[in-house]
């Protein structure tokens, strides 16, 4: 294991993890404020990837277009902001139609409603763009950065920079602005916040707006990073992002970011586990070390094994606090 390779793998893991973290934020914000696991969130992310493709198409960008300079920057900004906006509005509409009428129902009702919305969004994606993989225009130039002996793909750096900027902005917004304070108040005690004059419905709508907007941004940068999307991608990525939110302590923003990045890093580092079937596998007392077909194939199992270990010792996640018993 060379140092260069380790560093390259860490960059890849960080980029993957940053996307998970952006989506995990949406899960954790909604859970924090109304204690609902918003199963539709992953599919909002999927809609974000499709909306980005549609906007790029409207701007005349196809699979093989390679805009440069100012055109590239403006095209990327328009597509990213457009995806954020469409997803944010979609999130608010879903909250208004599918969750708000059920807010005082037993907790299983909105949960089932969320699963229903998830399936509806998947079917919409299928109707809109079909059942097979569709390509995401690779507009970002294929820059290769050489840092010392390490070569890094430029798009990885872009993904990391954009994701962390958005996360820092969100953190500042929640901790410094009056809306952020109101969000924290509603999360702590909805009734008391309402008594203090906070418009609870509005704050919850804003939470969905921001959470879904981040998923829209994730949809755009995911497309740049991976180059294709499909209608069920939201389920697969959403499951990992939800796990990240639980990992970090659901309801805790910094926890979700940490969880996402850690899962990305674990997933990437798992590829270092050697293939026990290979003829050159390392041995210990004559027994081959490693996993069949190498660690990469086992990354999900490894992530969940670590998750179980952490939850056994810290049931509320890495940064989660034991929520006070609600009366």
């Amino acid at each position: 294991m060379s140092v260069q390779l380790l560093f390259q793998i860490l960059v890849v893991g960080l980029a993957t993890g940053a996307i998970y973290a952006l989506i995990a934020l949406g899960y954790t914000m909604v859970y924090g404020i109304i204690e609902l696991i918003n199963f539709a969130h992953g599919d909002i992310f999927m809609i974000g990837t499709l909306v980005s493709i549609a906007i790029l198409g409207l701007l005349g960008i196809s699979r093989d277009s390679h805009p440069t300079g100012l055109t590239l920057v403006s095209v990327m900004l328009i597509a990213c902001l457009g995806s954020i906006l469409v997803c944010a509005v979609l999130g608010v509409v879903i909250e208004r139609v599918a969750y708000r009428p059920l807010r005082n129902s037993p907790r299983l009702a909105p949960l089932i409603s969320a699963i229903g919305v998830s399936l509806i969004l998947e079917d919409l994606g299928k109707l809109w763009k079909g059942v097979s993989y569709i390509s995401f225009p690779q507009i970002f130039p294929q820059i290769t950065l050489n840092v010392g002996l390490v070569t890094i793909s430029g798009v990885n750096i872009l993904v990391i920079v954009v994701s962390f900027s958005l996360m820092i902005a969100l953190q500042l917004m929640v901790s410094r602005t009056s809306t952020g304070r109101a969000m924290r108040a509603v999360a702590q005690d909805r009734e008391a916040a309402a008594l203090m004059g906070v418009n609870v419905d509005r704050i919850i709508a804003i939470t969905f707006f921001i959470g879904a907007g981040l998923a829209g941004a994730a949809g755009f940068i995911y497309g740049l990073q991976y180059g294709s999307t499909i209608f069920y991608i939201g389920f697969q990525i959403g499951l990992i992002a939800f796990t990240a939110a639980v990992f970090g302590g659901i309801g805790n923003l910094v926890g979700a970011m940490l969880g996402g990045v850690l899962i990305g890093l674990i997933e990437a580092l798992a590829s270092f586990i050697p293939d026990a079937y290979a003829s050159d596998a390392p041995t210990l007392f004559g027994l081959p070390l490693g996993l069949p077909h190498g660690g990469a194939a086992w990354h999900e199992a490894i992530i969940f094994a670590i998750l179980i270990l952490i939850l056994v010792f810290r049931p509320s996640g890495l940064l989660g606090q034991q929520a006070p018993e609600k009366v």
Partner: protein
Amino acid sequence: MKRSWSRILALTMGIPLLLAMLVACGSGTTTGTTTTTTGSTTIKIATDLPVSGKDTSSGKPAENGAHLAVDQANKNHTIPNITLVFDPKDDVGPAGIHDPAVGAANVTSLVGDALVAGIVGPFNSSVAKAEMPITNQAPLAQISPANTNQCLTKNTAEAGCTGANNLIPTLRPTGKVSYFRIATTDDHQGPAGADYMYKTLNLKKVYVIDDAETYGIGISNAFVKEFTADGGTVLGHSSEPGSTTSYTALLTQIASKSPEAIYFGGLDSTGGILVRQQMQQVPALRNLPLGGGDGLVSNTFASTIGLNGGSTFGTVAVVDTTTSTSAKTFRDQYGAVYGAANLSVYSASAYDCANIIIQAIKTALANGAHTPQNSNDAAGGKAFRQAVISAIQSISFDGVTGHQAFDANGDTTNKVISIYQLAANATGKPDWIYKTAVTVS
């Protein structure tokens, strides 16, 4: 309750009526021709292919090919004193795609018509599984232009057809071969891909990824075996489940081993597209070739990947006749009747299948076999069909797709794998362009 009874009544009366009409239609073409006791001067050659719905583009060009062969034989009086009748069947079901149940019903009805001497088809291996037990018991010869599943004809461990994959007792209940095919089987794809990459492209070090499914693992293992035997180095072999979304970490690891190419065993949808795309995010792999089987050779793969990154190759188990000069006469004849736009690689395959049946009928008659009296002459039909099957088994036929003969399993001895490369077609769109053919020894 009342209504359901009337429905049952309607069914009990309707179904026999329908059957009677079908039988009437089937025999209508032959009545009047069989006046002597020396046997019918009309013999039918049938097809069973998916020619409607979503499968039209697959089956119709093949059906046309077989039809052309029958028409030409009649025109040239290839078989003296015999008029051939083309009897096409469609195995598309209610879902709009090929349906094994419809295929089984089709061949059952063809078996019931003693004048049918052979069937060209089916197109899909799943349909073949439903039809083969029926035609084998008749017996009635079937020649498929397109079935590539190796387990239809073999039950060896080498082909991966043992245990649950051993279908031979079900598909060949009489123990005798009545099903033939001129398509090369899938188990030759991996070795052909290995030979092409090692010998033609001169790539010595590859990394292999498969999708952890039967097809992907099978084709990858066959590839690794042949590539190593050729003298190449396989740097590693990973199995990544089709649900994987991110291959970049694995690809970064692979890049550190400096491969000259990557081989992917699997489908476009179980990782093929993602691996090709994510190779572009790893600088060292950006322009590396990717090889694979027919699972990659899809329109979706071509339109999603486009012409970005390194070259992509795929093997397909058919003889490509859409561009070769040797097939030009056939293409011209076909184009004059059905239009050049309706030609596919399976047109020539089905044309050859029908011609093999025609030649077998001729040989059978020359060897003293008698045609059945009429459609209801089951005993005469059985004897004649058996003679045709024997003639096919020992045939030596030079067709558009090359020299065709059959081994003891009914597989062609003309094992050709075509290599396709992702490139721009005549209109500039990304498409799978025929490169060359590899003959499997």
